[in-house]
C-alpha cells in the first residue's frame, strides 16, 4: 500500500504524483492518493482506465479531502 499526499495540488498535479508513485511499483500494489481538488475524483478513475490499472474506490477523509485508491496491473 503506497500513500500519496496530493492535498492542495490542482489538476493535473494529483494525477502526475500518482503516476510517479506508480512507476516501478509491483503489479497488484494498491496506491491511495489523497486530494482536495475535485477534478481528481474524475481524473484518477480516468487515469486508471487509460493506463490499464483498476480503480478501487473513493473515500471522503477528515477535513473534506478524498482518498482515491487504484490497484496496479
Amino acid at each position: 500500500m503506497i500513500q500519496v499526499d496530493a492535498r492542495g495540488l490542482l489538476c493535473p498535479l494529483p494525477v502526475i504524483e500518482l503516476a510517479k508513485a506508480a512507476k516501478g511499483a509491483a503489479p497488484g500494489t494498491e496506491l491511495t492518493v489523497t486530494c482536495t481538488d475535485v477534478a481528481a475524483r474524475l481524473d484518477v478513475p480516468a487515469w486508471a482506465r487509460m493506463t490499464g490499472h483498476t480503480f478501487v474506490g473513493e473515500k471522503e477523509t477528515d477535513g473534506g479531502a478524498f482518498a482515491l485508491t487504484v490497484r496496479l496491473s
Partner: protein
Amino acid sequence: MFLDASGSAPLTKRTIEAFQAGLAEGWADPARLHTESRRSLALLDGARAAFADALGARPEHVHLAPSAHLALERVIAGINAARRGRDRILASAIERDATLHAARHMTAGNVTLLPVDSLGHVDLDRLADELCVPDVALAAVQHGNHEIGTLQRLEAIADLTAAARVPLVVDATATLGHVPAPARWDAVVGNAADWGGPAGLGIVALRPSTRWLPVWPEGDDWAPGGVSVPGTLAAAVALQERLETMATTDARLRAMVDRIRTAAASWPGVDVVGDPDERLPHIVTFSCLYVDGEALLTSLDREGIAVGSGSACTSSTLEPSRVLASIGALSHGNVRLGLHPGVTEAQATRFLEVMPRIVARLREQAGAPAL
C-alpha cells in the same frame, strides 16, 4: 486560426452584407405604426418565416429571444407553468447550464438528471422509468451536445415522452445549421451565433399543441425590449447559407474531424471522447493525460491557434466540465475543437503538427512520467 466555433463562428461576407442591409433598412422600432416601423417588422417577419421553414414549424409559433440562453429559460419556465400539478423536470445530465438552472429555479430544485453512457447517449430505460411517475412537467434533452458532439437518439426519446404525454424540449443550439433540424420535439431552441449569425439571437419553435404560459409580466413574452432587427435578418441569411451548403460542408468537416480523431487517438495518453459516428460533423474533443488545460490553451494561442476546453482550470468556476464528468472522461488537458466551414485542410494539418509538440513540452515541464 479559429478552431473554437462552437457557440460562435466567423461571419461570412453574405451575412455581414445582410447585417449592413438590416442597419440601413431595419433601424426603426418594429412595434410602432409608421412606414419605417413596418419595414423593420417586415424584415423580422421574413426572418421568422425562414426559421419556421428550417424547423418545420409555423411562423406564428416561432419566437425570437435576445439570446439562446434566454430562449431556453423562457421555454422551460413557460411549459412548466402550463403543466400545473406536475412539478418535476427531467433533463439529461449533459444539458446546458441555462437549461438546468431554469429547470431548478422553476421547480425549486425538483430536477432529475438522466444519466448518459460513456459516449453521451441518454439512458432510455431510465427515461422510461422516470416517465412512469405522473409528476413530470417536461423532459429536456439536447439534439446534440455542444462539447462532445454526440447526437441523441431523439426518435426513441420522443416515442417515450409522447407515449407519456410529457412535452419534450429539445435544445438544438449546437446543431441547427450543422445537421438537418430535429423532427421530433414539442419545443425546440436554436442559437444564431452557433450557425454563423451575429451573437444575440435565440429562436424557439413550439408545436400548435404545446401549451406555454408567460411567467414574466413584460408585454413581449419572449424578448422584453425586443431583438435586433439587423441581427435577426443576418441570422436568417446565415442559416440559409448553411442550409444551402450543408451537404458539402458536412462531408468535408466530418472527414476532417475523423482525421483529427484518428491522429489524436494515436498520441500517447490521449482520450478522444464522444460518439465517433452519431455525432455533429464539426466538433471534436479529447483530453491529454498530465497536461494543464490552461497552459495548453495559452500555448496554442501563442501559436495563433484558438481552441476551447472543458478543463477545470479553464472555467470560471474551477469546476471541471459537467459533460466530461458525466461520461467519465479525463477532465484535465482537455481540448475542444469546433470547425467552422472556412477551416482548411492545411489548418488542420498545422494543428496536428503543433499539438503533440506542445503536449510533450508541457508534460516534460510538469515532470510527468513517460507514458
